[in-house]
Each structure stands twice: as C-alpha cells, then as structure tokens.
C-alpha cells in the first residue's frame, strides 16, 4: 500500500505558468505547510479507505441532524427561503456565528470542527451587524425580478434619442455617465463585506450577491444608454468622495447606512422621478426597471440599520456613533448634490432645454432636492435615528432658499 502520508510530506506545489508574487506564494506555501497535518491526515484516511475498497457510509448516520424530522413543503410560489426556514433547525439564525467554517447551518458539523479549516477573514460574527428582518423576502423578490439590459429595454427605439435636441442629448448622456460612476460602488461595498460574513448568515450573503448582480446590470444599462446616445461624458469628482466614504466606512452598518440608506436612497429618488426626467420612452423604461432594484437595496439598508440599533446592547452609544458617521456622510453627500455634472443636466432635462435650465429647470431640481432630503429623513426616522435637528443637508436647494 502506498504511504500517502509520506506522499503528502513530499508534496510539491504544481509549477504554474502564471507569475505569482514570490512573497504571496511563500505565504500560501507556509500556511498550507502549517495545516498539512490535518488535511494530510484526511487525505491519508480517504486514500487508505479507497485502496481497501471500503465504504465509510458514516454520512448515512443521521444522529444529530433533523433528518426526516422537519419536512418542508413548497408554497404556491414554489419552494422559497421562507418555506425551508420554517423548521427551527434550519431557520434559526444564531445571534453569534458559532465558528468560521464553510459548513451549512443545520448540517451535521460540530463533530468535524477540529478537522475543518478556520476562515480567519470571517470577522462579522454578530448577526445584528448584517441582519435585516426582510432579507429573505427581498432575496426572493430579487431573484424573481431579474431583467436583461440587453433585451428588456426597447433599444430598437434608440433613434428617438439620436433625434433629441443636442442639449437634451448631452444632458441625458451626462446623467447616464454619472450613474455609471456610482453604480459599481453598490457592488463594491457588499463585495467588501460579503467575504467577512460567515455561512450562518447565508441569507444576507445571498441577498448581497443579488445586489451586486443588480448593480452590474445598472452599470451595463447606463453605459449602453450613454454610448448609444452619443457617448460617455464627464466624471464627477465630488461624487467620488462620497463613494470613497461608502467603501471606507468603519463597519458594515455604517457602510450600509451611507450606501443603502443615503446614497442609494437618493438614487432611488432620482429614478422614481424618471417619468419627469426621462426625455424618451426608452429612458423611462430604464428608470422604471432600475428603480425596483434600487428599492430593494434601500429596503435592506433601512431594515438592517434599524435592526442594528434595535438589537444593540447600548443603543444610545450606537446611535451617537451613527450620528457622528452621518455628520460626515451628509457633508460628502452635499459635495455630490452640488456637482455640476449632477445638477445641471437634471435642470436641462426637467426644464426642457438649456434655455430653461436656470429657470424652470432649477425650479424642478429644487423640488427634487426637497424630495431627496425629505425621503432621507423619513428613512432615518424609520431606523430610529432622528436626524431632523442634526442633519446638515439644506432642506431647500441653495438657489431656492
């Protein structure tokens, strides 16, 4: 019989044609050297068993599982997350994740803990840093409402865009350009935190993946819209500072507040106003499709921050920390809201042309501003963070005050 243990000891990493940074590869080698005793032992056991022609069949022992004890049935919508989470053994999400493994909640896993690797990057062990009570239903909704930017937008009507007056065409392309700039941060931010969330909070991870897919589609649709309408136009430096705050927020809840509640909330306000802003039916359809995706992200953010505050053992301290974060978040958002690449094209579109931008157009943007701030404060109220006295964003657009 071959000595697989020795085989493992002698194991050499397969040379790769892909150049790897030497230090990174060395760290990888060292890491797996340290743990070789554990996985090498597994390999040896498995190899021995196979060489003997034996079957283990230990997986047929259901002790410690809910096997056959918790039958679930599909509902009329199919088999939803809510259906399979009805039995406590599968649906109870622990307050603190019990370990940093890949194994599924509800599986037989405890007896294997010392033979499984720890994923040290799973650092968000407290459910209430990521959980929202509506995350399961939002996931189901997200999966049910996926759409295709390639074919679900009536691109065959693109000549309506080409025929627009030059100022309207430029303004609509600039709005699309600014949206391409902002959409990916709403994928980057969940991507940053996704990898730190352990498997016990799988519903949150799954929802975050749908959010990333939504944002990929938004990036796609606005990029296509800008290019088919003439081309991409100007970047927005002021907006980029807000995006940076989203990515560098000190913890997930603060990042979620800035992204989902404040920034996505404001994007949602703009999309909800799409009927008034869009110069063509094609543009209206883009806004109609994207607003329903954004609504889910706002919905998750609101309920997640609410859950965080509701469940926090020191609510007063947590609320004050969130206020301090919001003080900065609102100021960088003000930088965004005053960007010419944002306000001016909206004024041209709402006014009906450059000729009316400073009159009717800015009047319309002032109404949009009023809506942006009111909706933001309403979201803060919903999470239990009263920003009415502390909010530094002007309630009225500066030119309309």
């Amino acid at each position: 019989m071959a000595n697989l243990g020795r085989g493992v000891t002698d194991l050499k990493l397969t040379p790769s044609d892909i150049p790897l940074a030497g230090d990174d590869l060395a760290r990888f080698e060292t890491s797996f050297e340290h743990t070789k005793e554990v996985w090498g032992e597994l390999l040896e056991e498995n190899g021995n068993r196979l060489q003997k022609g034996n079957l283990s069949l230990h997986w047929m022992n259901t002790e410690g599982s809910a096997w056959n004890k918790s039958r679930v049935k599909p509902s009329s919508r199919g088999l939803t997350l809510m259906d399979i989470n009805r039995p406590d053994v599968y649906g109870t999400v622990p307050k603190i994740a019990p370990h940093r493994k890949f194994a599924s909640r509800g599986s037989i896993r405890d007896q294997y803990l010392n033979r499984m690797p720890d994923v040290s990057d799973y650092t968000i062990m407290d459910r209430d840093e990521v959980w929202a009570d509506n995350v399961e239903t939002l996931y189901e909704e997200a999966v049910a409402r996926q759409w295709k930017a390639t074919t679900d937008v009536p691109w065959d009507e693109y000549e309506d865009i080409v025929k627009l007056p030059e100022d309207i065409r430029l303004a609509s392309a600039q709005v699309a350009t600014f949206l391409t700039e902002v959409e990916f941060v709403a994928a980057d931010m969940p991507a940053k935190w996704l990898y730190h969330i352990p498997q016990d909070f799988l519903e949150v991870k799954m929802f975050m993946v749908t959010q990333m897919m939504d944002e990929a589609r938004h990036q796609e649709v606005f990029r296509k819209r800008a290019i088919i309408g003439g081309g991409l136009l100007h970047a927005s430096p002021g907006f980029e500072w807000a995006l940076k705050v989203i990515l560098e927020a000190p913890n997930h809840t603060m990042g979620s507040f800035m992204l989902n509640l404040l920034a996505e909330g404001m994007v949602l306000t703009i999309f909800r106003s799409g009927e008034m802003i869009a110069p063509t039916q094609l543009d209206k359809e883009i806004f109609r499709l994207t607003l329903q995706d954004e609504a889910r992200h706002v919905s998750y953010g609101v309920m997640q921050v609410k859950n965080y505050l509701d469940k926090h053992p020191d609510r007063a301290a947590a609320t004050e920390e969130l206020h301090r974060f919001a003080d900065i978040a609102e100021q960088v958002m003000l930088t965004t809201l005053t960007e010419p690449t944002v306000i001016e094209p909206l004024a041209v579109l709402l006014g009906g042309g450059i000729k009316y931008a400073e009159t009717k157009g800015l009047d319309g943007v002032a109404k949009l501003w009023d809506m942006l701030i009111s909706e933001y404060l309403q979201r803060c109220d919903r999470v239990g963070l009263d920003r009415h006295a502390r909010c530094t964003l002007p309630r009225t657009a500066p030119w309309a005050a």
Partner: protein
Amino acid sequence: MARKSGHFYIDETCIACGACDHACPGKVDAIYRVEGDFLGRLAIRIEDCIDCAICVPLCPVDCIHDGRAEGVVEGAGGYTKIKALQAWADNRNKD
C-alpha cells in the same frame, strides 16, 4: 358563507421593494403590483388578505396599515413629495 375580507392596505408611499409580496403566505398571495404604475408600487387585495400582518414589520417605509386601527388615510412623509414634482411637471409647459 363568504369569507370576510381583510383590513390591511398599502399607502402611496410604497417604494416597491417587494419585501411584503413574498412575505404574504403563498396560498393567500394577496399582494400585487399595481399595473401601469410607473413607481411599481404594491397593493393588497383585501378580499384575499387574511389579516395575518406578517408583511407589516418588513416594510422599510412603514406604509402597510391596519385600516381598523387607523382608518384609511393618505400616507405622509418624504415619499409623498413626488406628487409635488409630478404636479409641477404637468404644469411646466403651460407657462
């Protein structure tokens, strides 16, 4: 005997996230998207609603109400502001 209808309703401040739709028990399925509404808002078919209220706490804008407790009222708050923009847009070319 005809079943009594439910009492819950969704006000106009709905943001169309759909969290309530999937919370509604499958066989009940009383929540639907209002056809033709640009904002994609949802509504409750009261003849199907069983008053379970599972949907209520999942709403991020608190727009689902029990008509028995509150009476049917218009929603209030930021999400009603879109009416001002819509009214303004309807009139912007009349000047």
